[in-house]
């Protein structure tokens, strides 16, 4: 028994879904340097903060953000209580299933849909509704649960970093409570290590019981310049490694790499139309343009999804 145990531990590759590519080498090299006691680049365990974007970095984000899929389903479910939605945009188009028309309204339309479906209930009620949806709803293209649409190589990377005493955080434009509902089970990232966009929440006593009510008012947008500010608010230390896939992550990567000592920044390039999706400079979801140029100029690591990843999803 002892033999089989040491066999498994000795030969197993913690990043087995990564081919022997430059990205994999750069990750392993960075982790080796910052964990080598007495080494020039050594970083104490408490300072080993790593931040990950979620949409497009830890799970897929096509054909549209999964949180939007949830919001659209909730619009349909709640329509009977909202007769006014029948003639009011963007709800009218959402109810008709006309996503093109919904997207034509741009961010304001999307925020309106998210606000209408993510407020007016207590936090516990929201969590219960979302759990139910996550357990039963399937992705329109793959027919998998949304929580199965996670990137196997990134799950391995999270585990590998934590095994090396990194504290892993999610820092994403997605809703903070939305992500906290599944991040612990799906990624092993605790709620207190999830940072996202948020609506206002109000504490009050209802029938003598304290509750937190979700208000239909946007509190914080955790994208672009919002990310370093949120990192300061929630973590209070500068990460030494950051991972993203779009221009929305650029400021976080800049903030991380501007610190002293060894730093690591990585961007995932979605170029695999067969196993996942291919999109970059001209995409409305997860646009990767400016950040790609800066990554090249600064020598940040870029993952070539098609050629670097042995497998993309845990299934298949």
């Amino acid at each position, binding site marked *: 028994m002892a033999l089989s145990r040491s066999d498994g531990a000795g030969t197993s590759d913690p990043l087995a879904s990564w081919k022997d590519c430059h990205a994999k080498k750069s990750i392993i090299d960075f982790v080796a340097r910052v964990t080598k006691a007495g080494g020039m680049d050594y970083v104490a365990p408490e300072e080993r903060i790593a931040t990950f974007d979620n949409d497009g970095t830890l799970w897929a984000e096509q054909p549209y953000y999964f949180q939007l899929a949830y919001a659209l389903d909730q619009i349909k479910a709640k329509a009977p209580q909202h007769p006014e939605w029948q003639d009011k945009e963007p709800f009218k188009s959402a109810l008709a299933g006309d996503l093109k028309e919904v997207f034509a309204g741009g961010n304001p339309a999307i925020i309106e849909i998210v606000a209408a479906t993510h407020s007016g209930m207590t936090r516990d009620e929201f969590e219960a509704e979302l759990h139910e949806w996550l357990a039963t709803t399937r992705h329109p293209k793959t027919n998998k649960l949304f929580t199965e649409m996670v990137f196997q190589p990134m799950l391995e990377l999270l585990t590998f970093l934590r095994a090396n005493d990194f504290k892993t955080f999610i820092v994403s434009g997605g809703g903070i409570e939305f992500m906290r509902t599944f991040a612990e089970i799906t990624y092993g990232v605790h*709620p207190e290590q999830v940072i996202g966009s948020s609506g206002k*929440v109000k*504490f009050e*006593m209802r029938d003598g019981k*304290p509750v*937190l009510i979700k208000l239909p008012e946007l509190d914080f947008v955790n994208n672009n310049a919002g990310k370093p*500010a949120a990192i300061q608010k929630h*973590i*209070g230390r500068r990460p030494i490694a950051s991972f993203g896939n779009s221009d929305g992550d650029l400021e976080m990567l800049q*903030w991380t790499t501007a610190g002293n000592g060894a730093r690591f920044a990585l961007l995932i390039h979605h170029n695999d139309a067969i196993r996942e999706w291919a999109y970059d400079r001209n995409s409305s979801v997860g646009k990767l343009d400016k950040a790609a140029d800066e990554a090249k100029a600064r020598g940040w690591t870029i993952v070539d999804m098609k050629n670097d990843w042995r497998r993309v999803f845990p299934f298949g």
Partner: protein
Amino acid sequence: MQEVLQYLRANGYKTYIVSGGGQDFVRAYAEQVYGIPPEQVVGSMGGTKFGYDKDGKPVLAREPKLLLNDDVAGKPEGIHMVIGRRPYAAFGNSIGDRPMLEYTTAGTGARLGMLVLHDDPQREYAYGPAQGLPDTRIRTFTPALYDEATKNDRPVISMKYDWKRIFAFEGG
């Protein structure tokens, strides 16, 4: 309280500070003094704005704007924002901590809400007006808070009678 912090951590609890004090101020000493890392400090927060200095280096500048007043109802709201789960135990010493204790003890299962009563003018300070203690401007521990604690089995710690020693410098 240092012993309580250590005792809880030794039993697998993650300890947080949830204070009306400035978050960055408390973070500056919490790790060294209490063993509480910066990411486990929730406090009143000012705004910060990301930008670039004249050399193009990214900077976070403080803004004269209050994002969260982490007192009274702001405490459970701050807990929700930063921690995202309901605590199992909460400790406070004034009416500003009441909503945090309410929120904590309203959860299902075993919960603990404790209050420190400053009733030792000799070794430390005394303030109430609960229990006939002086009504000061430092902090307020009202009779209603005291009665509510008694009614809900929330232990009130008497500094004067319950603590052998208050400060580390007093010696053992």
